[in-house]
């Protein structure tokens, strides 16, 4: 039994990893079929894995209600909202007498109604609140305490002005004539473009190359059973 709990998963990971790695270098129809079948199985597996998160969340809130932990009233709201939202999409409800049509995919149906007027505004607003915090944090904490911090600050300010229409407007009229040709004194748009396409791209590429090498190292460690954190704890 211990073999199936400990060694068997490592063998499975090794075999799957080596086969899918080697498959890339064997471009035959059979190897393509093998990959197609693997990714089809993986898609179904991912679907069930997502279900795990949903069940875990519902289990947590159900326990909160069962043991009357602090804030369990809000857990009732979560569960009731879940039941209503799930049923509006899963059940073939015909609510035509109210004006709703059936079916999960119908834009006029109750499911999409809840999506449009509850899910979308709440999710959008949750992230938009960060705008206030980032403005406040920038004002209260962003200090040019060192050369590097100053470089960060200057680059940030250039992007913030250069990447909005006001950047072009501020400097569009500032030109100097040299040898009969007009040159912009502070071509904000061009400076911003250069900053993003050259030094920023260089730094991001350096980081990406390092990240890719470490991704490959971790993948090799997983295949050869050195990295086993995906198995979780326990015996």
């Amino acid at each position, binding site marked *: 039994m211990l073999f199936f709990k400990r060694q068997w998963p490592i063998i*499975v*990971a090794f075999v799957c990893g080596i086969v899918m790695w080697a498959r890339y270098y064997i471009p035959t129809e059979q190897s393509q079929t093998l990959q197609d079948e693997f990714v089809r199985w993986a898609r179904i597996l991912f679907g069930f894995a997502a279900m795990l998160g949903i069940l875990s969340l519902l289990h947590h809130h159900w326990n909160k209600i069962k043991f009357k932990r602090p804030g369990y009233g809000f857990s009732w*709201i979560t569960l009731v909202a879940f039941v209503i939202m799930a049923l509006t999409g899963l059940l073939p409800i015909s609510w035509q007498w109210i004006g709703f049509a059936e079916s999960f995919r119908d834009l006029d149906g109750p499911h999409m109604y809840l999506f449009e007027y509850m899910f979308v505004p*709440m999710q959008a607003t949750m992230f938009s609140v960060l*705008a206030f915090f980032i403005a406040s944090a920038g004002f209260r904490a962003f200090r040019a305490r060192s050369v590097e911090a100053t470089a960060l600050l200057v*680059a940030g300010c250039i992007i913030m002005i250069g990447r909005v229409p006001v950047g072009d407007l501020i400097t569009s009229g500032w030109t100097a004539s040299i040898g009969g040709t007009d040159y912009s004194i502070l071509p904000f748009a061009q400076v911003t473009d250069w900053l993003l396409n050259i030094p920023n791209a260089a730094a991001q590429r350096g980081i990406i190359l390092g990240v890719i090498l470490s*991704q*490959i190292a971790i993948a090799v460690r997983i295949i050869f059973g050195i990295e086993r954190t995906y198995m979780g704890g326990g015996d």
Partner: protein
Amino acid sequence: MTIGEIIGIWVAAGLTLMMFSFIYRDNAFFKLGEHLYLGISVGYFVNIQYWQVLVPDVYRAIKVNHDFLALIPSILGIFILLRLIPSLAWLSRMSFAFYIGGFAGLAIPNVLHGYFLPQLFETLRPFDAGWAGNLNQLVILLGVFTVIIFFFFSLEHKNVVGGISRVGLFFIMVSFGASFGYTVMARISLLVGRFQFLIDDWIMGVIFRQGG
């Protein structure tokens, strides 16, 4: 505008203001909105699971196309769900080993050929693009090299290596500054979007009945 739309916009506006109340301080309205959002999003994801995964890839494959091979990943998928039962949680290791091992193997050659090598080749391009292009290429080469040295911790960052990594740090700071600027832009955009809804759809569209 129908009655349903008007009610919906009032509900959406109310929920938006409830979430915005967090700016003042954490309060019961925000908690209510938070838990409501959680319940609704989970209910939505269950529908996505059912209609977009289980029905086409499992039910249709087995019942309609008689493709019984789909039973194997379904059983592996059920093993993943058994993670919630401590005595049977070990069964999920097989499922995770299957797809994590498989994707680790898939990733290595694809990422190398599709990402690493093209980026490396572009960095090491010959200088044949005119003086401005060559200068930019030189800056890119310098930037990539110095940033890689900055993240190389097997050598102590002093003397020559220290000087090179300091140049790399400068490039990183410029990049992070650009990221900061763009992050501010992203957050403000989201706020603009919510205000557009509150002003155009709720206040002007419903309260003042314009463009309805």
